[in-house]
C-alpha cells in the first residue's frame, strides 16, 4: 500500500498537483496491516497527518474489512467512494457494511501468489482513474519512476496490471468528489474534558499479564502462508525457526520444524531463508479454502 500511495502521489504530482503521501504503521513491519494516504491539491497543502474525511478509500485486502483494529471504515462519509479489491460484488459490500456512498470492486488479484504482488499497482491505477484528474500517461510514468529501480520486468508487469485497472475503472472516472473542509463558523465543538487525577494504581501504564503475545493472533494478518514440504526439509540447523521474527516455528522431538499458524504473520522470511527451499508460499485464501475456512 505504501507503493500504491507513492504511485498515486507521483502521478498526481506529474500532472501538476501539490501532493502529500505517507504510510502509517506501528512497530511491526513485514506482514502487518498498514495503511497509507495521499492528499492532492492545486494549492500548497498545509493540512497534515491521517486524513479524517477521505474522499476515496481503497481496500487492497478485503479480509481486513471486518477487523476492527484495521479501521478501514474510519471516516467513511456518505459521499466517500469505497473501492474494495474483492471477488464479491459491490452490492454485497454495500449491504454488508450498510453503506450509503458508492462502492466499487476491483476483481481480486489475491487469488494466486503471482497476482497478489501487483495488488498495489492495480489499486493505484484504479484510483488514478476514479479521481478523473490523473492522466493515463502520468500513471504510467509514475510507475516507471517508483518501480524503476526494481528492473524493467517488474515495471512492465506492474504497468500491465495498473493500466488494466485504470481502463477497467475508466467508466467511473471522476466519481470521486473533492470534499469540503470544515468551516470555522458553525463547526462541531470538540468535547474536551478536564482529565481527572487518578490513583497511580489505576493511572500507571502497567498491565501485568503473562504470555500476552500468545493472545495476539498475528496469524490473521497473513495473506501468504508458508508450508513446509517435509520430504525436502533436511532439518538443517533450523534456519527457518531461528529467522522467524515471531518465533512461530517450533521444533518437535523428532527435530521437525512446525509452523504455528495462529501466530505466523506471513512475512515469508522463512521461505527466503530455508537452504534447501523446502518451504513454499501459498496464497492464504487458497490454503484456507482447501481447509474449509481461515485458521
Amino acid at each position: 500500500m505504501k507503493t500504491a500511495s507513492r504511485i498515486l502521489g507521483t502521478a498526481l504530482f506529474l500532472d501538476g498537483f501539490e501532493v502529500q503521501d505517507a504510510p502509517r504503521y506501528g512497530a511491526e513491519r513485514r506482514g502487518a496491516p498498514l495503511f497509507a494516504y495521499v492528499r492532492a491539491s492545486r494549492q500548497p497543502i498545509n493540512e497534515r497527518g491521517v486524513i479524517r474525511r477521505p474522499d476515496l478509500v481503497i481496500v487492497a485486502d478485503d479480509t481486513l474489512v471486518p477487523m476492527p483494529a484495521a479501521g478501514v471504515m474510519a471516516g467513511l462519509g456518505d459521499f466517500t467512494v469505497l473501492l474494495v479489491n474483492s471477488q464479491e460484488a459491490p452490492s454485497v459490500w454495500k449491504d454488508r457494511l450498510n453503506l450509503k456512498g458508492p462502492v466499487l470492486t476491483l476483481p481480486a488479484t489475491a487469488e494466486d501468489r503471482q497476482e497478489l504482488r501487483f495488488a498495489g499497482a492495480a489499486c493505484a491505477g484504479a484510483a488514478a482513474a476514479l479521481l478523473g484528474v490523473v492522466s493515463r500517461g502520468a500513471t504510467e510514468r509514475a510507475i516507471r519512476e517508483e518501480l524503476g529501480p526494481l528492473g524493467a520486468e517488474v515495471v512492465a508487469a506492474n504497468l500491465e496490471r495498473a493500466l488494466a485497472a485504470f481502463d477497467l475503472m475508466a467508466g467511473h472516472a471522476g466519481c470521486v468528489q473533492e470534499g469540503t473542509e470544515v468551516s470555522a463558523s458553525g463547526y462541531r465543538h470538540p468535547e474536551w474534558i478536564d482529565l481527572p487525577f487518578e490513583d497511580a494504581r489505576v493511572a500507571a501504564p502497567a498491565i501485568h499479564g503473562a504470555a500476552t503475545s500468545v493472545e495476539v493472533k498475528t496469524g490473521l494478518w497473513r495473506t501468504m502462508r508458508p508450508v513446509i514440504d517435509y520430504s525436502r526439509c533436511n532439518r538443517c540447523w533450523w534456519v527457518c525457526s531461528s529467522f522467524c521474527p515471531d518465533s512461530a516455528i517450533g521444533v518437535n522431538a523428532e527435530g521437525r520444524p512446525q509452523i504455528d499458524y495462529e501466530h505466523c504473520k506471513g512475512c515469508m522470511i522463512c521461505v527466503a531463508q530455508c537452504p534447501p527451499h523446502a518451504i513454499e508460499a501459498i496464497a492464504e485464501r487458497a490454503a484456507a479454502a482447501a481447509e474449509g475456512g481461515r485458521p
Partner: protein
Amino acid sequence: MTRILLTGNRAAAWGARLARADYLPAFPITPQTEIIETIGSWIDSGEMDCRMATLESEHSMITAAGAAAATGARVFTATSSQGLLYGMEMIYTVAGWRAPFVLVNVSRGLASPLTLEPDHNDVLATRDSGFLQIHCATCQEVLDSILMAYRLGEDARVRLPVIVNLDGFYLSFTREPVETPDPAAVDGFLPPYDPENVRFRASAPLSQAVVVLGGSPYSYFRYESHLAALNALEAHEEIAEEFARTFGRTYGALDTYRTEDAEIVFVMMGSFATKAREAVDRLRQAGRPVGCVRPRLLRPFPEEGLRRALAGKRGVAVIDQNISMGKGGVLYGELASALYGLGQAAPVLVSFIGGLGGRDISAEEFYEMAAVTRSAAEQGTAPPPRLLYTLDELREVRKLQAIAHVERQGLGEES
C-alpha cells in the same frame, strides 16, 4: 534546481549530501533510520563522498561526531527520542567543545509508556545543552535548515553544534514536493569549513584540556557558550538573508503568518504549525482576525522578535506539543518570560497542551482554541491550561483500563 517528492528523512539526507558532510557516525532508531540508510546507499553508489561509521550506541555516536568535528571535519549525524536521551551525557559534553556539527533529531515521544509517534519532549531535553535548535515544519525546510545550520554553527561568532528537528511520521515518512538546490549554488552559500584553531590530526596525539576545578573558570566557559548562542540570532538573520537571495526561500527565526492585523495568534513549533496555518485561513474566511507565529529557532530563543510580533495582540494561544511534569507547556513558560514587562501591550496567554505522542489536533480544535483565547482576552484573564483531550478518548482509555482490571484480577493482584 529540481522539484521532487521527498520524505522528511530523505530531505534530511539531501541536506547532508549537499552540505558535503565528510563524516557520518550512525546508529539506527525509528523513525530516523531512513536518513542514515539513504546516505549509506549514496556512499555505496559513489554519489556521496563521505565516511560512514556505525557505532554501538548513540553515546558513542555523539562522541564520535564531536571528536570528528574537533578535527575540523564537517560532520552530520541523526537520531531520535530514546537514542537522543541515551547520548545525553555527550550532548552536553560535545557542545562544550565548541566544535560545530549538525545533528538531525526526528522527534518521537519519550517512554514511558513507549511510543513511536512525535512530540517534542525528546528535543526539549537538550534545550540547555549548548546545542542550537532549529525546528522545521515542512520537508523543504528540513533540507534548507541543514544547509543554514552548518553556516550558523560554523560562524566564528557562534561555533556551536546545531540540532535540526523534524517530527516523526508527520514529516519523516511523509513525502512532499521539495526543491533540491543546485549543488554549485550550495557550494557558494556554504563553502568548506574553516576550523581555525580546531585542529586534531591523525598521528599527532594531543589532549584537550577540559577539566577545570573551581567555579570561576567553569563559569567563564559556560557563560561564553551562552553568549555564543545569543550571537546566533544576529548570525542567523544574515545567513537567512543570503539564503533567500541565493535560493529564493525566506526563513526567519520566527515564521509569522497573517499576524499583522491579527487579534488572536497561535504560537506553536514543528510540523503541526502548518495545520495552524490552515486553521488561520479558515478562521479568516469566517471573519476572525487570527494569525500564527512559529518559532523556528528555540535556541537561541528569539525573544525580541516575539515581543515585536505579539505586543498589542489581544490573545495568544500557546500550543505545546510537550509537557514538563509539574509545570506544564515549555513554550508557554518561555513565551511568558519573553513577554514579561510589556504592560498594557501584553496579550492574554492561554496555554494548551496537544499533540502528545502524535495525537492529532483537529481543525475544530484549532477553531475552539481561537474562541477560548478570544473570550479570555475579552475577560482579561486566562483559563487554566487545557490538555486537548476529548470525552471519546477518555472512553477509549476506560475500555483499556477495564481490560487491565480484569487482567489484574486474573493474576490475583486485585479483587
